């Protein structure tokens, strides 16, 4: 469905662990958003100049939310927006996909946002979820309510999400797997799944974007079929197709 460009007031900015959950209202964006979609979000300013791509986090009939983690100047300013503050939103963008009814989701850190959004289209399954600290683990109760068995791990307790994926890899055969996290994490999981000869795996790829519409060719990712644009042919790619370097 055609994306739309809107200037929307912030309905709510709520702290969730180290994140800011920003809720915005737009019936049209909500109506046409599907699994895999994302939005470009920017401040009404020339500095920062570029909008940032964010997965949907939650979507209701009239409102939707995104999850912001402070990484630089743009996300820092965005994390501080107050109720009523108007921000620019372009979306829904990206290639949609039909998720399985049940499957395996693997998230590291803020990678929880798109997989939580995806879980809304599913009937349940298994979630592997790693974060730095226990208090950074969010939505675990909601995942359980959505029928997911939740396995978490934190760095403060000495573990990475890749450790629990490795431990339970034998359970994953024949299941569809969706991964979102750092490139390092995705690469490590690719190795584990290759060892188990599991090939029904997909990765959410994150890239800095210019337009989000395929115009600027900025968000290229190397694949077995040459460069592909994350904004147009992603953000979700079959794991075996992407070359993570």
């Amino acid at each position, binding site marked *: 469905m055609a994306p739309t460009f809107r200037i929307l007031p912030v309905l709510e900015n709520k702290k969730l662990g180290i994140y800011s959950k920003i809720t915005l209202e737009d019936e049209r964006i909500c109506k046409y958003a599907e699994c895999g979609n994302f939005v470009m979000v920017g401040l009404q300013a*020339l500095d920062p*100049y570029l*909008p940032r791509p964010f997965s949907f986090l939650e979507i209701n009939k009239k409102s939707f939310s995104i999850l912001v983690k402070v990484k630089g100047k743009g996300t820092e300013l965005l994390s501080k927006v107050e109720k009523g503050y108007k921000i620019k939103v372009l979306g829904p963008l990206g290639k949609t996909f039909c998720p399985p009814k049940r499957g395996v989701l693997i998230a590291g850190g803020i990678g929880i946002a798109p997989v939580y959004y995806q879980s809304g289209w599913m009937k349940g399954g298994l979630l592997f979820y790693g974060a730095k600290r226990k208090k950074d683990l969010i939505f675990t109760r909601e995942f359980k309510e959505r029928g997911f068995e939740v396995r978490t791990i934190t760095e403060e307790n000495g573990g990475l999400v890749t450790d629990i994926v490795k431990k339970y890899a034998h359970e994953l055969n024949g299941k569809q797997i969706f991964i979102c996290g750092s490139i390092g994490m995705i690469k490590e999981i690719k190795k584990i799944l290759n060892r188990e000869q599991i090939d029904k795996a997909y990765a959410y790829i994150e890239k800095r*974007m*210019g337009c989000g519409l395929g*115009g600027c*060719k900025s968000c*290229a990712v190397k694949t077995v079929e040459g*460069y592909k644009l994350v904004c147009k042919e992603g953000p979700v790619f079959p794991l075996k197709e992407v070359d993570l370097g």
Partner: protein
Amino acid sequence: MVDLSIKFGSLELKNPVLLASGVWDFPYAKIIDFKRLGGVICKSVSLKPKVGNPPPRITETPCGVINSIGLENKGFENFISEILPEARKLGTPIFANIFGDSIEEFKKIASKINGVEGIEVNISCPNVDKGGENFGGDPKTVFSITKAVCEETELPVIVKLTPTAANIEETAGAAKEGGAMAVTASNTFPGLVIDIERKEPFFKRVSGGLSGPAVKPLALYNVYRIKNAVDIPIIGSGGIAGYKDVLEYLIAGASAVQLGSIIFNNPLAPIEILDNLQCWLKENGCKNLKDVNKK
């Protein structure tokens, strides 16, 4: 309504606001009403497909964006069979933008392009190893390429200049001597970003092309310099974010302008600029764009 139409060379456009090459694609037509624009310049097309540069290809700078795309395109044949027919449906004047890494390549593409309002010649991309700004910095090469292209086509030819040529008046003059109908001043500025963690340049090709409001005074100065040295229509390009920027370019000597990366920041900028330009001209007693320069 104030008359925003412009005439330069053999061209007549309904207004001076064009979309620059390399920033837009067809999905923008769902957001921007292309029929309202003065025209659009298509993404650079080369004789053979180009895969573009290895990622990362873009990063932000204060009030700007720096890219290292590397002219990714599917080649001339795809342009003719796929892109051009789709572009014609936009209902706005269409300009092809051609790139070659030799004079022969420029000639071959120019000889085959038809069905557009004009050809913009890209001799100024900072992100390729062969051609690009290496051509655009040298007046003799600018002359040779422009002449070669003009000999191959009856269409109006616009030469997109390198902003960092030692003497942009000379390269603009060379384009005119070669037969160009107009020049675009200018392409992105070569610049560097360092990745502090990796302790090396952010882009694999080291430098990238800087655009956005950060470069506006630099590009504007190029327009002013050319205007005062060479009698050739100028399309101003670089850092336009609002209608006042357009006015500055027109006063500096541009006949038209191109909007580029601002559509990333605000996809509706072209339409807002046109609306605001109308209002300003009306409020300031201008009947047409020529009146902008009336004191």
